[in-house]
């Protein structure tokens, strides 16, 4: 029984995202005016701070959500382990900028592992491990990385790039070890496996990194304070206000152009439409999936690094990835899972609701505030979206399938 798909989209559906967002904005404005008339504290600066936090948080969620959405778009797997990949990315950055240079033997081992990963990455584009370029990258990579790891203290930007590479390789390996053998298995088995991978990474993180909260204060000009006044109210923030959205934007644009312009990106989109047919047309679906994991993990690592920068500390590994992961997944679902712009829009919605809910319903003498329900809210939102509109608010026609 094949259900015939609707070929036309009803008009109301095309305007739905707009309506939802307008409705939310109207609610927020109304509540802001009300609060402003009630208390001295709730001035323009108060809400501007919430706005800035929302944009930053939304951008971070977007980076994680893209990984969820790409993987789901292609192999229909809710990658439970993605939140933990994000955690590993954050901690790798931390270890790259705090305790470099390493002792030579450790540096050599790490360089070998990383170079092997690097070769795998280049191989995705070149097609064979024996390709001269892949081998060249391997040879140069070992030397350069060994020197880099054992001779210098890494600056923050280099730590982010290195962490993205290492985490990308981790994503590749997770796919190879845990998901490739299950390509033809029922989807529930795949989901269970991803839960197992997630637990594995949590506990390995506990074992290998630390078991307590870690301060994350790299030496970078981005965290220098930035103070200005809005309507007479002081707002104290830092340059991350600009840096996080800009980095996110650059990465999203790079990803989008990769997906639309390159051969491999087009293969990705083809596989998202129908992996079987794509395979018959000569697309190596395994390679496409590996690329997906690579890109998703790299974005998550960038997100992790900036997460640490934003909050000034990393939570302990066992719990750091869970809530951001779930919220980013909710974002991906809200935006319409499988769609890249949808993930960004969804992440912004989550980021804004999280900050504005707590700002709009703050603790007042008569009301205790809703801060303690902040995390519950993400789950409630996720369940509501899944129940009411599993295809997300962006819907099918606006979205571009990966």
């Amino acid at each position, binding site marked *: 029984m094949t259900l015939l798909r609707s070929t036309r989209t009803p008009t109301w559906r095309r305007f739905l995202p707009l309506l939802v967002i307008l409705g939310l904005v109207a609610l927020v404005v109304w509540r802001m005016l009300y609060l402003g008339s009630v208390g001295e504290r709730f001035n323009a600066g108060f809400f501007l701070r919430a706005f800035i936090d929302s944009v930053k948080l939304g951008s971070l969620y977007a980076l994680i959500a893209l990984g969820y959405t790409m993987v789901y778009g292609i192999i229909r797997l*809710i990658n439970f382990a993605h939140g933990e990949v994000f955690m590993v990315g954050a901690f790798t950055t931390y270890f790259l900028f705090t305790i470099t240079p390493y002792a030579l033997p450790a540096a050599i081992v790490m360089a070998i592992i990383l170079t092997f990963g690097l070769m795998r990455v280049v191989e995705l584009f070149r097609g064979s491990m024996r390709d001269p370029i892949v081998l060249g990258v391997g040879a140069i990579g070992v030397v350069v990385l060994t020197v880099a790891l054992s001779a210098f203290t890494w600056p923050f930007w280099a730590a982010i790039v290195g962490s993205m590479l290492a985490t990308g390789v981790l994503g590749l390996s997770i796919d190879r070890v845990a998901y490739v053998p299950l390509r033809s298995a029922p989807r*529930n088995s795949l989901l269970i496996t991803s839960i*197992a991978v997630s637990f594995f990474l949590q506990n390995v993180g506990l074992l290998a990194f630390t078991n307590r909260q870690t301060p994350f204060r790299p030496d970078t000009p981005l965290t220098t304070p930035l103070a200005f006044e809005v309507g007479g109210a002081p707002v104290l923030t830092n340059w991350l206000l600009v840096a996080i959205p800009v980095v996110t934007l650059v990465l999203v644009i790079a990803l989008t152009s990769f997906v639309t312009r390159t051969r491999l990106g087009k293969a990705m989109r083809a596989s998202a439409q129908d992996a079987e047919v794509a395979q018959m047309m000569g697309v190596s679906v395994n390679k496409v999936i590996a690329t997906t994991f690579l890109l998703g993990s790299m974005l998550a690592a960038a997100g992790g690094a900036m997460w640490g920068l934003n909050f000034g500390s990393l939570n302990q590994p066992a719990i750091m990835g869970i809530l951001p992961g779930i919220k980013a997944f909710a974002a991906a679902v809200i935006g319409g899972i499988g769609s890249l712009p949808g993930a960004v829009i969804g992440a912004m919605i989550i980021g804004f609701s999280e900050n504005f809910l707590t700002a709009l319903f703050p603790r007042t003498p008569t009301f205790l505030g809703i801060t303690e329900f902040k995390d519950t809210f993400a789950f409630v939102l996720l369940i509501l979206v899944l129940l009411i509109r599993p295809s997300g608010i962006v819907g099918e026609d606006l979205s571009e399938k990966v």
Partner: protein
Amino acid sequence: MARIVTPTAFDAIDPKKRVRNVALTFLAVGVGVLVLYLLEGIGSTKLVQALALLAIWGVATVSLNLINGTLGILSLGHHGFMLIGGYTTGLLMLDEAARQRILTSARSTMTEETLALSVSNLLRGFGLEALTTPETLWVRFLIAIFLGGLLAAFAGLLVGTPSLRLRGDYLAIVTFGFGEIIRLTASTRLFSAYTNGALGFPGVTSEFGKSIWWTFGALAFTVFVISKLKYSSYGRAMQAIREDEIAAQAMGVNVAYHKVLGFVISAFFAGVAGGLWVSWLGGVRLDFFLFQLTFFFLVAISAGGTGSITGVLLGTAVVVFVRQYGDPLEESYSIQTWLYIASATLALAAAGAVLFRTLRRLRPRLHWGSWVLVGGAAAAALVAAVDPAVIEGTFRGFGMRAIFLSVLLIVIMVFRPDGMLGRTEFSWSWFLREQRTGPTDEERTQDAWLSNPAFGSEAGRAAAREQELAEDDTDAPEGSDDEGRR
């Protein structure tokens, strides 16, 4: 093809064998009771506790498997149901001294009214003073457990309802979300009068949770109900939903009712397990009910085999064993020892890979991955042996058990997704190797004859006479079902 005939509860068993099976069952139960009695007498406290935990988690896994295995819905919210049952039982069974302590404690968020909630007060309200004595504690415990189960079942109703709209992984996420919502809201001020916020409360009687008899009694009851349900018409309908929801509905099965029924029954027993678990721990705290609990159950179910209750219990035994006896893994050893352990593990993994590829006749037998493992093992051993000075210090394997269980789960999912037992259920005829594994010769010939002539038609029979043995549509084993298609 391993086994073609699967056992069902409706296998025609001849009466003599049925009598024998009943006798054997009684005998086995008797032996089991005796063994438990002996173990309780001579076993260490740790062993008795491990056994009790096995039974408690057995209740949880068997009930979880009603949703995951029989109904075919991946449910990830079992810890939420257990939390409800656990907190209810805990609050209702809190002893008087503990109540006084909490009432006078400055950090407590519980009120006098909520602390007055107890089975004793309930019974007093009904005028049953006789049941509030210390000797009748077990009656109160049973009532508390039952009420906990009922509340959890109600939560199961709430969680089960979305299952009517959703399928597959989205539904799994929704159950996970519900489980987490239950856990997160339990500590907020909405419920902190009942749960004492994140602090929880100690002082729940552990007389029952740590007793082999109570826990195994609960397990026996659970296994009885769930297995009878699974092998009844209702269980068949649930399995039909697992196999093909649309077809089940088209055959008259009320899919909505059966799904919700499965959730409610499963949640009830989860609540019972939660009550026993709280009693085993002797108190209630939020972090007794983390998602990790559901993960352990998932490992148990997948390791044993979702198709079989026996398998689930076997898997639970593995998980409980690792949890209770795996603590040497988490102790502090010198890094040299750890390197040797790592080396040995890698070498074993490599050997396992070679063995696996040999058994499955995969070529090349020595995959490059095995070489990587061997290389890693050699490197670790080399470092440990040659240069102990560099690697002085000790290292605590914190979280090793969880790592072990997650690796176990990945390995099972990759290499044996059906679990240890698959769909094989324990039965006496299986145990005594009486199970038929295929048609007899007589049936084979009958079958060959049948499939030759076009059944019932004179013309067909004539045609068949000409090409007597040329064709047959003898049922082919799995994988070759395309033959009959055009």
